[in-house]
C-alpha cells in the first residue's frame, strides 16, 4: 500500500468530513466488497468494487472529470481504494481524493456510519 498516490489528495477521517460538509456534490466511492459495505459505510458513499470500476462506469457517475471524487476501502492495508484512485487518475479525473485510512480509521474514531 503506497503512502501517497501521485495526483491524488490523501485525506484523514476529519478531512473527509470537512470535505463532505463543504461539498455536498462530492462523490464517495466505497471500493470494498458488497458484504462489507452492507455492514457499514460512510454516509453518502456508493459501492463499486475496484475490479468492477471502469471508465464508462465512472463516466456515468462523474461526467465532469474535474468533479471531486473520494475513494476508500478497508484501511491502509487494503489495495482496493489505491487501485481505484490510480484508475480514476489514469482516466483523467483531476480532483481525486484518497482516504488511505479507510473504514478502519473511520470506525476507530467512532464517526457516524450507515448500516443496512
Amino acid at each position, binding site marked *: 500500500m503506497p503512502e501517497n498516490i501521485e495526483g491524488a489528495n490523501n485525506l484523514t477521517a476529519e478531512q473527509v*468530513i*470537512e470535505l*463532505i*460538509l463543504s461539498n455536498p456534490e462530492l462523490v464517495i466511492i466505497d471500493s470494498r466488497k458488497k458484504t462489507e459495505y452492507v455492514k*457499514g459505510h460512510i454516509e453518502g458513499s456508493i459501492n463499486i468494487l475496484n475490479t468492477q470500476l471502469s471508465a464508462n462506469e465512472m463516466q456515468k457517475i462523474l461526467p465532469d472529470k474535474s468533479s471531486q471524487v473520494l475513494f476508500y476501502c478497508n484501511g491502509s492495508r487494503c489495495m482496493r481504494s489505491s487501485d481505484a484512485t490510480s484508475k480514476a487518475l489514469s482516466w483523467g479525473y483531476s480532483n481525486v481524493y484518497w482516504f488511505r485510512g479507510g473504514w478502519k480509521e473511520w470506525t476507530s474514531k*467512532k*464517526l*457516524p456510519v*450507515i*448500516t443496512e
Partner: protein
Amino acid sequence: MRIENLSIKAVTIIIFSMIGVVAIVLSILAGSYFKKAALNAQMNSLSRVIEVASYEMLRELNVYTFDLGMKMGHSRELIQAARKHKLESNKEQISAILDDPFINGFVGFSNINLEKIRVYDLDLTLIAESQQGIEGLNKNLDDYLLKKIIQRKGIERLKTIDVLWMSSHGPMHSTLVPLGGLHLIAYLEVIVNPAFNLSDIGKITKTPISVYFTNGEPVTVSQIETKNDNYLPIQFTLNTSEGKPAYKIIGYEDVAKLDKEMGETQVVTISGFLVLSLITLIFALWLFNRFLFVPLKRMMRDMEQMTHGRLDLTVNKKGLREFYFLAQTFNLMANQVRQRTNELERLLDLDDSAIMCFGSDNEAVYFNSGASSLFAYSRDEIGDLDLSDLFVEDINQLMSQSVEASVNAQSKLNVQLNCRSKSGEQFQCEAVINSIDPLNSSGYAIVLRPITNDRGSNKEDCSASTEQSGQRMNAIEQSLSNLLEMAKTNPSLLSSLNNLEQGVTDSKGAIDNKIQVREQAVSVMLSALACWERDLSRSKLDLAEESKIWPVYIDKSTPTTRTLDKYLNIESCPKNPRCQRVIDTAEFVLKQLGDHQTEYKKKLIDSLQVLRQLISGI
C-alpha cells in the same frame, strides 16, 4: 563433651551436616515462599485477565449500542422530528420513535438490557426520551459525559462517546451518538444496564464469577463461592469512566491444577537443590578428606610412630602449607631429641662403671656398655634379664632393709654384691644401689665396679672406690633421669631398652592385652617345645642351639637355656615377652615338622594363630 574428644573430621562432618540441615530447611522455606509468590503472581495476572475481560465485555456492549445509535441517528423520521423538537407534538413523536426498539426490537436486542433512549439538542438539553425502560433517571446527561462532549469542538462532536456512569439505579452505560449523522442536529443517548452483560466476563475468562455492587449487594453470585476450597478468589473492581467503583467482580480460579503443578515444581526444585547441595557437600568433604584429613591422619600416624621411638622416621611433609610447616617443625624437634638421646647414651657409655637400671618387675631396663661387658651379655640379651639372673643377693630385700633403716626412701645403698656373668661365673662388685622411679614405676639404678684381689686387700682403696661410685652415681643420676624421662614417652628410644617396645603408659586395655599376649606366648612356646620333643624327638637344648633364637648358657660347665626356660612358665615369662622370638621359634619348629601332621602340630598352629591375632590387636 570435651573438645579434646572431638576430631577435626567429626567437627567438619557435624558442620557439614548442619549446613545440610540448614539447606533442607531453607529449601523447604524457599519452596513455601515460592508457592506463595506464585499464587500472588497468579492472582495478579488473573486480576488483570478479569480487567481485560471486563473491558472486552464493555466493548462488545458498545458494538450493540453503537449499532442501535447509528440506526436511530440516521432515522429520517427521527431527524425530522428532532429538527422541529420545540413543538410539543414532535416531542411525543420523538418519544414514540424512541420506544420503537423497546417494542419492536433491534439487532442485538437479546444481547443488551436497553434501559432508556434519550435525545438532547445541541445545547445538551433533553428534548425527549423513550417512555419505555427505566424510570427515575436524572434528565440531564451524566456530568462526566457532559464534560466530555463540551470539551469537543467541531468535527470532534461527531464522534461517539461511550461512558460507564453511576445513576440512581446503579451503574449504567451510555452511548452518545450524533443525531443526523455527519449533519449533526442533536444527540442521541442509548442507555443500557451493563449488569446484564457482566456474566460475559466469566465466559471470556472461563472462570466462575460473582459480581457485587459497591455496597455489597450481589448482582450475580457463583455457586462456587460457597464451596471454594479448590478455587482461588480473585477480585477486580470495575470503575466508572470517571474512576469511581462500579462493580466488584470476583473470579474463582480453579487452583487444583495450579497447586499440583506448583507442588511438582516444588518437589523438583527442592530435590534439585538438595541433590546439588549433597553433591557440593560430598565434593567439599572429598576436598577436606584429600587436603586435610588424609595428611592429618598420615601426620598423626608418623608422629605416633616417632613418639614410640622410631626417631629414624620423619613425618611426611606432603600437604598444605600449614601441614608442611608442622611436619618440618616436628621433624626438627625429633632430630634434636635423637641427638640429645645419643649424647646421653654416649655419656653413660663413656663411664667405665657398669650402670644398670631395673624396672619394678626386676627386669633390666637399661645397661650401659660397661655393664654389658662386665656381664658378657650382648645388648639383645639384656631385655631377657632380671635381677636374679645377674645377682646372687636379693636386691629387693637389701633395699627394703635399707629403707626401713633410713628415713629417706630414696637413700642410696652401698654394698658388695655377688654377680653372675653370662657364663655363670660369679664375681664380686662394689655397688651403689639407688631406688629410682623409672617409667613411673619403682626400680633400681645400680652402679657396679668389680673388686679386684688387690683392691680387696686394701680397705682404704675400697672405701675410696665406694665413695667414688657414690659420687659417680650422683653425677650420672641426672643424665640417667633425663634419659629415662625421655624413655617414658619413647620406650624404644634407647637401644638398650629393648623390653619397652610396647610402650610404658599402657591403658587398662593395653595391660589386659599384654597379659593375654604373655600367656599366649607361653602357650605357643610350650606347644612348640611339645612338638619339638614329641614329634621330632629332640631336646630343648637342641631347639635353642639349632634355631639360634635362644642363647645357650654354660652354668658350671653345664649348658643351660635360661632365657628359653623363662618363656615356658607364666611366672617366669617376662612381662613384655619378645613375641617375635616366640613366633620365630614356632615357625622354626613347624618348618622342621614339614608336612607331618600331628596333634601337637595342630595345637601349635592354633596357638600361634591366636598369638598373632593378639599381637595384631584383632
